[in-house]
C-alpha cells in the first residue's frame, strides 16, 4: 500500500532520515519505536507529505506522491493521521469537526455526513457530546474525536504519532481501545508509540528506528523478546 524507497530527509544540516526502504502492506498494523529524536515522527509525516522528503520516493497506491506534480490533497484524503496533540478544530463543534472535510472535499451531502459522523461518534462513545465544542472535552475524548475525524474520510491507512503521550494516565486506555478496535477491523495502521505493551499486543510488525535508519524490524515477539541489534537491546532495557 505504501512503499518507501531510499527516503531521506534533512532539516538544514541535520540529516534525520538517511535512506529508508520500507513497505507497509494492506491490513497491516505496524508500530514504530525508538529513542527520542530518532526520526520516528519525521518518517511518519513523510508518508503523507507533511514533511517533503529531501530525496527518495513515497509510493502510495501506485503513485509517487513525493513527486511535485501530484495533487497531494486527494491522496491525503486516503491517508488519515492522528497527532500527539489531537489538533481538533476548536471553533467547530464535535460533529462539525467530523463533517467539515467530507462535505467540503468529498462533496458529501450534509445529512449524509452528519449521519456518518453520528455513527462514528457512537462507536467511540461520544455521541452525547456531538454539539459541544472541543474545549469541553477531556484529552482522551479529544483524541477519540481526532480518530473519528480521520475515519470519516474513509482512509485506506491511518498514521498515529504517539496518540496517547499527551494524555493523563487514566485516559490512555480508552484511546488505545479505540485503536485496537480499528486494528481488529482490518484497518491498515502505522503507529509511533512509547506504549511498548500496547505495541506488543496489536502489531503485526514492529520497526525500531535509531540514527535515521530502521535498525531492526520483525514481529513483536522477535523485537521485544529476541532483539538482535545492540541498540534495540539497549533501548528496550531502558524503557521496559
Amino acid at each position, binding site marked *: 500500500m505504501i512503499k518507501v524507497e531510499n527516503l531521506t530527509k534533512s532539516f538544514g544540516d541535520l540529516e534525520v532520515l538517511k535512506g529508508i526502504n520500507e513497505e507497509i502492506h494492506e491490513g497491516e498494523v505496524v508500530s514504530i519505536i525508538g529513542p527520542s529524536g530518532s526520526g520516528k515522527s519525521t518518517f511518519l509525516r513523510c508518508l503523507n507529505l507533511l514533511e517533503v522528503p529531501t530525496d527518495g520516493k513515497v509510493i502510495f497506491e501506485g503513485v509517487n506522491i513525493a513527486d511535485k506534480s501530484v495533487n497531494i*490533497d486527494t491522496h491525503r484524503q486516503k491517508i488519515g493521521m492522528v497527532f500527539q496533540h*489531537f*489538533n*481538533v478544530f476548536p471553533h467547530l463543534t464535535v460533529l462539525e469537526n467530523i463533517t467539515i472535510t467530507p462535505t467540503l472535499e468529498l462533496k458529501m451531502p450534509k445529512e449524509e455526513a452528519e449521519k456518518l459522523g453520528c455513527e462514528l461518534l457512537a462507536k467511540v462513545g461520544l455521541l452525547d457530546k456531538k454539539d459541544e465544542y472541543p*474545549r469541553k472535552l477531556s484529552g482522551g475524548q479529544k483524541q477519540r474525536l481526532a480518530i473519528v475525524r480521520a475515519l470519516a474520510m474513509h482512509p485506506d491507512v491511518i498514521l498515529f504519532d504517539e496518540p496517547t503521550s499527551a494524555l493523563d494516565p487514566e485516559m490512555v486506555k480508552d484511546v488505545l481501545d479505540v485503536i485496537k478496535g480499528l486494528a481488529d477491523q482490518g484497518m491498515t495502521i502505522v503507529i509511533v508509540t512509547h506504549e511498548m505493551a500496547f505495541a506488543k499486543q496489536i502489531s503485526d510488525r514492529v520497526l525500531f528506528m535509531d540514527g535515521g535508519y530502521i535498525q531492526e524490524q520483525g514481529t513483536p515477539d522477535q523485537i521485544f523478546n529476541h532483539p538482535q541489534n545492540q541498540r534495540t537491546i539497549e533501548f528496550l532495557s531502558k524503557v521496559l
Partner: protein
Amino acid sequence: EDDNTQKGEGDLLQQILDRGELIVGTSPDFPPMEFIDTTKTGQDQYVGCDIELAKYIADSLGVKLTIKAMDFDAVLASVTTKQIDLAITGITKTPAREDSMEMSDSYFDEEGESGWQGILIKEDKKDVYTSLDTLKGKKIAVQAGSLQDLYVSEQLPDAKKQYITQLNDAIELLNNGTVDAVATAYGTGQDFVKQKSGLYIGEELLFTLNKDYTGNRIGIPKGETALLYRVNDIIKDVKDKHLYEEWYQTALNYDKQKIEGNYLQRVAQIFSIYWPKFLTGLAATLGLALITVIGGTLLGTILALVKLSKNKFVKFLSSAYVEIIRGTPLLLQLWLFVTIFAMFGNDQMIVSVITALVINSSAYVAEIIRGGIMSVDKGQWEAAKSLGMSNQHMMVKIIFPQAFKTILPSLGNEFIMMVKETSLASTFYIGELMTANNVVKTATYFSLETLTITAIIYFVATFTLSKLVNYMERRLSVSD
C-alpha cells in the same frame, strides 16, 4: 405695484420706502463685523456691528430690514446688479469698486481699532516704557515673518528679537521676564489685556503706520445718489453718536466670556464654553481613525495574503512596501502625499491626509493579519492538510476563523493608535481634536488650560476604547 420691475436709475431710495423693506447683502463670516450666532435661526442669527449698522439704517428710513447672506464676491456682484439695496460687509474702497458701485463715506476706520501694530508690556512697566524709544535694546518677542517683525526691524532696529511661534507663548515669556515686550496687532493686544490681568497696551507704544488704508464703506448700486446721500447722512449721525464703536465693542464681547479664577476654574470655564468645538474635534478624530483603519484593513489584508503567498516577486514587493512604510515617520508620509497630490492638482488636504493615513495603517495592519494567521497553532494547519483539505478551504474554514480572535483585538489597538496618530493631521488644519485644541488655544489665549482639556479628552477616548478592546479580547478568548 410690482417691486421687481427694473425701475429707472436714481429712484432706489423711493422704491425702498415704497416697499417698506431694505435689503442688505452681507457675508457673515467676518467677526466681529458680521457673523452667525449658531444658537439662533432666521434673521436673528446674523449678528455683529455691521448688522447693527444695517438695522440702524433701516430704522432711520422707517422700513423693515432683510439680511441676505452670501459670500463676499456675491455681495459685490449683487450690489452692482441691484439685487440688493446695500452691501454692508466691511468693504474698503478701491478704484475698481468705485467704478462698479457708489461707495459711502467711511463708517469705520479699521486702523484706529485693529489695523495698528503695537507693543504689549506688563502693566507695572507702563511708566518705564512710555514711547518706542524707551524700548531701545530691550528684548521683544515677535512672531517670525509677521508684520510686527517687519516693524520691529524698521522702527526698533536695535531691540533684541525673540522669535516665537504662538503669541500665547510670548505672554508667558513676558510674564516670567524672559522678554520685556511683545510686538502684536493692537486689537489682539487689547484682547489679551482684556483676558489676562497685569498686561498693558497703549497708543503711545504704536508703530508708525504709513499705509494707505481706507475705512469700511457701504456699497450702493451705481447711480443711486439719492440713496447714497441718505446713507451718508445716517453714517454721519452714527459717527456723531459714536454708535459704531459701541456696536463694535458689543460684537467683540459677543459670547466671549472673561475666563478667570485659578487653573482648575479656568479649565472648567474654557470647557463649558468651548465643549462643542472639542466634541466636533473628537468626532472628527474618531471618524478619521475609523476610516483609516477600515481602509488600512482592506489594503492590509491583501498585503498579508500576498506576503504569505509563494510568488517570490510579489512577496518581495509587498515586504518592501511594508518595510518602507514602517521605516519612515508618519509625519514625512503625510508631507509626501500632500506634496504629490498637490502636484496633480488636488487641493483637498483631507484627501491627501486620509490617503497617507490609510497607506501608513495598511502596513501595520498587514503585519497584524499576518501575525494573526501565523499565530494559529501549526497543528491546525497540519490537521487540515492531513485530512486532504485544499489550501483555500483550509484558510477560509480553519485558519481565518481562528486567526480572527487575535486579529480583532489588534485592529482595535490599531484604531486606538490611530486616534492618537491623527493628531499629526493638525499640521494640515484637518479639523480633528488637535486642530480644535489649536483653535481654542488661539481664541482663549490659555495654552496650558486648553491642552489640559484636550489631553483629558484624548485620554478618556483611548482609555475607554482600550477597555472595550480588552473586553472584546476576553470574550473572544473565552471560547478556547
